[in-house]
């Protein structure tokens, strides 16, 4: 617990407002407990850690390290330990006067786009989605939905303007996460700090360098921790490789570095990047609006597919070839994972989720319990009508 807290406190200015509120509430909760109450609360955890022999481990108290995680995970008491930590957090939060419930009141939006280039399977695409939602048909030109939502209609503002008008002005309220380079052109932002915009394509020079640095680490936990620590602390910022929309935002730069260091394919495949970035944004920032756009990945090249963790363009001179069918398989499950991630948080109750398959001119919409569709769901809906309806939901 201490390494995680120390790490957060030492980089307070790089935390999102939601994270700051969360840490503050936890501290406040601890403070609210009497010394005897705090001792009683934490005693089972200390006893357990004693039994685990944590004191004898080479255990960083300042940072969450791979070594720390590895030692904990292979302890036979690991599951028990996780439950104890959870119990302490819950008790401290319950003791805090702060409540994050106030932030839950406004309608939130998650818009997920599966672009037309992805030939998804019409029979199975929505089969495993949340049964609370339903499939809808779009009358054509479904690419327009994203464009209209971002740019606005004569009757409804674009979502960037909506967010700016309705929220505290913080870029962590609106996230635009893109596998390719489409969203930026659809949504001219008033300033880089009005949204958190991350594009896998735009990050390419940075990603390539980052991957090369990571791959230098030998198969040693200690050395890898050193490499990770260097990347986390300073070295990556000195490369001059950040895209303009991120370069001026230290918090977003740190988010990207944390994202890449946490694995989950974010450095390797554009669609994994989109999914994992959204999951982390949901966990850490609880934004009001997210637009996530998946995309195409290249087919693994002959021979190099066995070294998928390497820069494919660097290790083979063969040209990249699109892999639409497999990109679609990846994007379909990852789109669903975004909604499943959102469901872990209370904000989900006020979240409207729309996943659009441009290829099928079809969508899947999940509404808060108090809302209903604004058109006959058995009929196709025009992009303009759908975008206008979404816009009105967000201002209501």
């Amino acid at each position: 617990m201490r390494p995680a807290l120390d790490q957060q406190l030492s980089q307070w200015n790089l935390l999102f407002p939601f994270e700051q509120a969360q840490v503050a509430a936890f501290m406040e909760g601890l403070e609210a407990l009497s010394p005897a109450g705090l001792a009683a609360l934490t005693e089972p955890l200390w006893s357990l850690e004693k039994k685990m022999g944590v004191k004898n481990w080479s255990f960083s108290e300042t940072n969450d390290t791979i070594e720390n995680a590895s030692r904990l995970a292979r302890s036979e008491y690991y599951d028990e330990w996780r439950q104890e930590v959870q119990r302490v957090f819950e008790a401290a939060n319950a003791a805090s006067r702060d409540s994050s419930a106030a932030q839950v009141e406004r309608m939130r939006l998650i818009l997920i786009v599966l672009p037309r280039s992805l030939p998804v399977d019409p029979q199975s695409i929505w089969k495993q989605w949340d049964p609370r939602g339903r499939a809808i048909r779009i009358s054509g030109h479904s690419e327009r939905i994203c464009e209209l939502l971002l740019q606005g209609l004569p009757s409804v503002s674009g979502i960037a303007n909506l967010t700016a008008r309705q929220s505290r002005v913080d870029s962590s309220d609106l996230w635009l996460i893109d596998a390719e380079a489409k969203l930026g052109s659809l949504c001219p932002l008033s300033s880089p700090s009005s949204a958190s915009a991350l594009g896998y394509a735009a990050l390419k020079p940075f990603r390539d360098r980052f991957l090369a640095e990571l791959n230098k680490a030998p198969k040693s936990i200690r050395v890898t921790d050193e490499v990770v620590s260097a990347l986390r602390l300073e070295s990556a910022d000195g490369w001059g490789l950040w895209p303009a929309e991120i370069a001026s935002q230290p918090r977003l730069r740190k988010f990207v570095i944390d994202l890449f260091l946490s694995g989950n394919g974010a450095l390797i495949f554009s669609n994994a990047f989109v999914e994992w970035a959204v999951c982390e944004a949901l966990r850490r920032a609880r934004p009001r609006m997210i637009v996530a756009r998946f995309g195409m990945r290249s087919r693994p090249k002959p021979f190099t597919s066995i070294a998928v963790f390497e820069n494919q363009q660097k290790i083979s001179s063969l040209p990249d070839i699109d892999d639409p069918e497999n990109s679609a398989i990846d994007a379909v499950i990852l789109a669903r994972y975004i909604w499943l991630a959102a469901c872990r948080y209370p904000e989900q109750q006020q979240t409207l989720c729309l996943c659009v398959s441009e290829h099928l001119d079809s969508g899947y919409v999940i509404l808060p319990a108090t809302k209903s569709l604004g058109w006959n769901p058995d009929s196709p809906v025009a992009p303009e009508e759908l975008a206008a309806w979404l816009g009105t939901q967000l201002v209501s």
Partner: protein
Amino acid sequence: MDASRRNLLKTAAVLLVDGLANSSRFASCRTPIDAAARDDRKVIIVSCGGIRREETFLSTGLGNIPHLYHDLLPRSIFYPFLRNAGVTSHYNAISSILTGDWQRLDDWGGMPPANPTIFEYLRKHKELSQDSAWLISSNKALTSRIGASSIHDFGPRYGANVVFPKQLLINAVIQAASQGHPEHSADRAAMRQEFEAILQNADNYEGLGWSVSGEESYLDLRVRGSMERAIEDLVRTNAPVTGDEFTFLISEEVMRRFAPPLMAITFSDVEAAHFGSYSMHLAGIRTMDRLVYELWNLVEELPAYRGRTTLFILPEFGRDFDGSNTNGFFNHRSNDDSTSLTWMMCLGEAARAADVIERPVQHVDLCPTIAGMFGIRGLDLPGKPLPGLSA
């Protein structure tokens, strides 16, 4: 896989095993099988990474495993409830399978198993030479230390040969990239230099073939040039080549040349899931399904194996459930049935009558079961002999 690419891989595999057979370390292994090992029974363990039941033996996954389901299941003893109650990381899971006790080791392979492996029990009990026990692995998470335990009375002198064929391919690719000239990856002369450097790298633990006794990797000079040519061809081909395919071919060569009584093969193409590609994960499952079927056909074809071999096939664990806070199929860290509950199939000599054993079993049950098959009794292990198998 088309015939030409398969032939290229096969050539590389043959040459690699040739190299091992002719190296000084393996000088004692030139006869296919030594006298002490001729007690006929053979066991092959195939572990295949982290695979969820829903992508395999549940109704949603049967399409991914046509050979396991249609061709092999009807003649197998099938255990639908195999539990990994230990650490669900590769090194720990495979060590637990091999030792019959739950291992809690450094995930990165920095520590040998804390209990004797089945390789050591077998070699010590039967006084077998090192060519009697092999571990051939695609998995990058393993190290040579998995071949023998830290137990004083056992240890490396009774350990297995441990070979990482996939690493040869990886090393070649990375070496070429490190030159900073992507066009070299399709250039024969340039690639030859890469291979030379890799093959001469004696202290590389991920070498082509090496024993747990700590001797240096060595590949016979006679075959080196041919091997370079075969792999250069591989670099220039236009279709994907997988690590598991190469691991299978090396395993086949070891079976033909050494016919070891005990061999463990670990496939890992499915681990592309860690990078977030579900389609590559499914492709890995289909490759595993096909390779296991080919392996079984090989067992039935080779006289040294036919009628005397027991083959176990099992995932090391599942993967995390959709919606888990560990990002679903990407990982295998959650403490949930999706991750810890998987299946096992047993074919061959010990599975004389097809059956489905619904009684829950565990990964650690494999070691005492195999020990029993080789007449090794009295092991005091948490794992218990598997039900339903012939003695």
